[in-house]
């Protein structure tokens, strides 16, 4: 079997000269295409205006053009790096990074890669039906863009498994296609990736909050002593930026439209006028933010400490930090519940790495809130959106056994049950939002609950025909 690999699979890993990779991909690739056809976007299209990663250089790393989705060229790219990269943290700090997986860390590295890899196709599966209700061709195109790139991220992780983890890696790569989001028998590994993304408001929230978790996880893997993983993640972060852009501007536009409708009808209750009321948006923020916090795992983690010490997984922007990068002596403040109130306790910094990462994430999330509040302000409204307390609605970690209000107050189960629908999207809210979702496929047109974007894609106008239907 001979395939022109560099043509079919853009790459900078010398695929054409690597028999091992070719052999692995020969059996994996058809299964991937098959997975894409059955689990990928459900709306049939002729072609979509997409960017395709074709290189790693600063300039022109991507090409834009209309492509039939199943002919999308999912490539394999690792960022280029200097030859003398050194391990930046942990017990091997200062030593050259690894170009091969050290046998000692094979199991852990493989696990980290599998978990990351599992989230990538999961989101495609979760968003499978969204295309049927896209508010505009521009948004539909963005959805597909995010989807194909999550597909490429899957490829990136599979590349690592194929290239560095032998037969075991091939089996894990295969399993990545076998698990499916929401599948009762073989679900995706992380809970948040087994929930369907039912509507476009959820989609924007997902790309803002949950994709952002992905960004932070990739950021820690980018620091890894295992250089191919590090370089892979660095390149993925480039694409991830666009996913976050879709989320940020998506929520921007919903809030903008909500402001317009509130002004137009002079009421906060814009539901009857086909808009999403601000308190519903807040509930969606509460929900997506809190389930995304769960993805950071337990605040205290010996696994994370071991990964750090071994050099497998660093901290966010490890190299810009000014401590000793060993953390054996340091402490870290950790919020927890004690005797009926939330207090801050000092714990060994090594054990608090998940919390450290989560705190970075929280800071980043706040910038979005600021931005949305500026829109409210500009439109002359006093209402504000906010991030709920980190202990709110948590299933993982120190707060998971307590009920915390969005303001951070500890309450009993009775209060929680009584107020729950004030804080989280209720059945009625979800039904309402879903009912707003009607496809708008006419170029230049947009649904009534969302404002159009200020710019199109790649210099093209909003009216551009981004998607041709089959």
């Amino acid at each position, binding site marked *: 079997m001979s395939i022109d690999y560099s043509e079919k699979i853009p790459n900078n890993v010398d695929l054409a000269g690597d028999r*091992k990779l070719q*052999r692995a991909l020969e059996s994996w690739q058809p299964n991937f295409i098959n997975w894409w056809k059955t689990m990928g976007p459900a709306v049939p299209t002729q072609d979509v205006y997409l960017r395709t990663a074709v290189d790693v250089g600063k300039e022109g790393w991507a090409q834009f053009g209309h492509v039939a989705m199943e002919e999308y060229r999912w490539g394999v790219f690792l960022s280029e790096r200097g030859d003398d990269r050194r391990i930046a943290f942990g017990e091997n700090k200062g030593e050259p990074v690894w170009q091969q997986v050290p*046998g*000692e860390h*094979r199991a852990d590295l493989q696990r980290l890669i599998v978990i990351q890899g599992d989230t990538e196709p999961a989101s495609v599966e979760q968003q499978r039906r969204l295309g049927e209700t896209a508010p505009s061709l521009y948004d539909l195109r963005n959805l597909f863009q995010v989807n194909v790139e999550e597909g490429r991220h899957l490829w990136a992780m599979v590349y690592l498994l194929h290239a*560095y983890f*032998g037969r075991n890696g091939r089996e894990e790569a295969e399993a990545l296609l076998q698990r499916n989001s929401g599948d009762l028998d073989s679900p995706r590994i992380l809970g948040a990736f087994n929930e369907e993304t039912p509507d476009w408001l959820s989609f924007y929230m997902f790309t803002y909050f949950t994709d952002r978790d992905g960004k932070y996880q990739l950021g820690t893997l980018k620091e890894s002593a295992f250089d191919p993983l590090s370089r892979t993640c660095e390149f993925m972060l480039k694409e991830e930026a666009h996913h976050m852009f879709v989320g940020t501007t998506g929520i921007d536009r919903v809030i903008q439209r909500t402001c317009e409708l509130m002004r137009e009808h002079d009421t906060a209750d814009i539901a009857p006028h086909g808009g999403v009321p601000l308190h519903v948006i807040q509930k969606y923020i509460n929900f997506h933010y809190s389930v995304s916090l769960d993805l950071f795992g337990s605040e205290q983690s010996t696994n994370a400490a071991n990964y750090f010490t071994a050099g497998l997984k660093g901290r966010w922007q490890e190299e810009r930090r000014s401590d000793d990068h060993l953390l054996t002596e340091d402490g870290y403040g950790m919020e927890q519940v004690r005797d009926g109130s939330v207090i801050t306790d000092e714990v060994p910094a090594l054990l608090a790495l998940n919390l450290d990462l989560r705190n970075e994430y929280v800071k980043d999330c706040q910038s979005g809130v600021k931005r949305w509040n500026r829109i409210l302000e500009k439109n002359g409204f006093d209402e504000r959106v906010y991030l709920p307390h980190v202990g709110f609605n948590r299933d993982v970690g120190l707060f998971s056994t307590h009920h915390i209000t969005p303001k951070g107050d500890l309450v009993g189960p009775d209060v929680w049950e009584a107020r729950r629908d004030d804080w989280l999207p209720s059945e009625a809210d979800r039904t309402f939002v879903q009912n707003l979702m009607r496809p708008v496929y006419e170029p230049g047109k947009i649904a009534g609950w969302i404002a159009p974007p200020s710019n199109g894609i790649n210099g093209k106008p909003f009216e551009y025909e981004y998607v041709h239907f089959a």
Partner: protein
Amino acid sequence: MTESGPTTDAGSPAVDFDRDPSTYRHWQLEIDSENPAVAYVRLDVDEEGGLVDGYELKMNSYDLGVDIELYDITQRLRFTHPGVRAVVLTSARDRNFCAGANIRMLAGSPHPWKVNFCKFTNETRNGIEDATEHSGQTWVAALNGTAAGGGYEMALACETILLIDDNSSTVALPEVPLLGVLPGTGGLTRVTDKRRVRKDRADVFATKSEGFGGKQAVDWRLVDEVIPKRRWDETVRERAADAARASTRLPGGAGIELPPLQRTETGEGITYPHVRASFDRAAGLVEITIDGPDGGAPSSMEQVHELGADFWPLAVTRELDDLILRLRSNELELGTWVIRTRGDVGNALAVETFLEEHSSSDWLASEIRHYVKRTLKRLDVTSRSLIALIEPGSCFAGALLELALACDRQYMLDGPFDDSTDDTGDTDDTDGTAGSGQEEARIVLTAANFGTFPMGNGVTRLGSRFHGDDDHVAKLRQEAGRRIEAREALELGLVTDAPDDIDWDDEVRIMLEERASLSPDALTGMEANHRFVGPETMESRIFSRLTAWQNWIFVRPNASGPEGALRKYGTGRRADFDRRRV
């Protein structure tokens, strides 16, 4: 003593196992001129001849150096003196046979040294029993004075124990009461399992430091016979002659010489004509390559006798034996041994068939096979991870396949090595004698794998591998003689995994690195457990029960701590025990 190479531990020198009868310091080997079927092996320890500084070998006590000479004697008796049918083990000193292992040596030795010492002395005693049982060289202990501790354990390895009756000489195991350790060189086990001393009596005996002599020693079966001093020499001679007469040893002729091994040692490895070991200190492993025979079977046994120590099976076994001993003592941090063979499967089979045909009629053929068996047993009790790599150009067939089966894991390359230029793995070996890159790796089972080389627990390595599944072993027996390729070997359960050439380098590298990252102690314990699946024998109990406990006691403060019994012995002060039972 070899000066090259690293030392094993602070204060422990590298150990050299080369010995020559003309330079023995501690033993006299004499073939009885009147009855050449009898050999006398007399212990006469040179007090100043300790292997390490810091102790004197008083009272005919021994250290590793003394035992290395004893091992050399056992080997030469079997190969150089085929006419010997009975061996009298005695002392050159009156009233003192042997006081056992030197206590100051034990007290001052680091733990690994004690463990290696214990293992080697056990193997030598097992070898003595093997000579009696399988070689028709019956060992008779003639205790012309007190045999205490390791001294009595040496006697226990003999078929018959004669004790002089002089009102003072006794046999004793004073380790527990005096030293706070065990009679770990088979003592406890042989007293009960071999001499069938009742276990409550064994308990009394092993806690009574002065031991027993005279009639009670006979009554309790600790010795076979006590002999008055005046009739001592004559009776010993008679008993030896009786044993020689009863021996079923194959008729001897001229023996063969065992010349010094040709060995080159460097910091990077050890090389012999047929065996090469190259060290990878960074990875903590040694790659061992064993060459198969150059040609097919010899034309006749006469030719084999002429070749003597140059005959491939003997030469390669001597080299491997020496290598195992050296690596075990001198390269403690090379925790994984990667074992390969190289050569023609057909030749290996031809030589094996030839030996098989002659092993019941020719003493040398028989001795070679028993020597292979003992060497494989050494491998079984070696506390290193053993990994067999079965690659194209290898010759794991019959006896050589036992090497792979002795390993903890076997990896067999599926398909030929890839010759294409773009994806050359690391070619790790220097000389390309294999050169047969297109050939696939094959292994061959022979009759030898089904009983010729039993493990210490009395079963074959296949029997242990497939313990509880006799049907499968029977099925494998039908595959004997057939060349089995990787996939089939995997299906038959003969190898752990069979990656193809694309995966081979990665799989092997990662597996070896993973192994090297695990706790060496946990590995030693785990491997010892897995290697001896199946029944126990006296021999395996000595290793699995006696020495395992001994090694535990050795690291306990009650033995080795500053207040422990080993350290306090001979100071006139009592040990101060931590009284808690653990």
